[in-house]
């Protein structure tokens, strides 16, 4: 159990450091807080989480978003709101879950494709704005 905890924690750190290193304007929610090693909530400014989720899905990566349009409600996550997450990030959240079957290669694959997916989604967004 402890061994698996530590293994997932290492994967989580690799994922989070990789995202921060390769993608500008990201927020890792609760990064400094004690938390589970298998869940990362990361938000990207100026994009919508569900669009990222669908692009990742097309690349064979399954994850979720707590964001607006993916659930019955249009409103952003009340938890992220309560945490004081800035407005630009509120709709761009992804929830990445690791598990026993997640490997280092899986993490590296996500780090390989995610920067391009975020960049593409940002290129589609109106530049802010007159």
């Amino acid at each position, binding site marked *: 159990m402890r061994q698996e905890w530590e293994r997932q924690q290492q994967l989580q750190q690799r994922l989070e450091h990789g995202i921060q290193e390769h993608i500008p304007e990201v927020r890792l929610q609760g990064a400094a807080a004690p938390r589970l090693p298998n869940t990362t909530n990361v938000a990207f400014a100026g994009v919508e989480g569900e669009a990222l989720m669908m692009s990742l899905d097309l690349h064979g990566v399954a994850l979720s978003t707590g964001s607006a349009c993916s659930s019955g409600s249009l409103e952003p996550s009340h938890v992220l709101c309560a945490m004081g997450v800035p407005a630009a990030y509120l709709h761009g959240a992804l929830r990445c879950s690791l598990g026993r079957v997640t490997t280092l290669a899986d993490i590296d694959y996500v780090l390989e494709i995610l920067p391009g997916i975020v960049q593409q989604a940002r290129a589609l967004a109106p530049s802010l*704005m007159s």
Partner: protein
Amino acid sequence: VQYSDIVQEHFEHPRNVGVIASADAEAVVSNPACGDVMQLSLRIANDRITDAKFKTMGCPAAIAAGSVLTELLIGHSVEEALKLTRVEVNTALGGLSPQKVHTSVLAEDAVRAALKKYRQR
């Protein structure tokens, strides 16, 4: 959320992405609740829309709605474009689920806002 094949196809290959430089009509509209923002710009000659480009920050349906909107507008007169509604956008997308119908409303808002400004010039 289930999407039609048409929505998926427009999401993967959006048409007419961008902003027309010194456009004849343009608008940026948004839905504050879900955070979607759509920008539409039009080239108009002799009261006919000769080019349309869009940008969207939003979910896959909102991106597809902007993309299909440009296709519905190009080649049509301003008069015809003013009659375009969310219903035609929804139909052109192969039918949106109830929780995504608001993206077709955003597309209608965009064309109305752009053409309102155009008429007021």
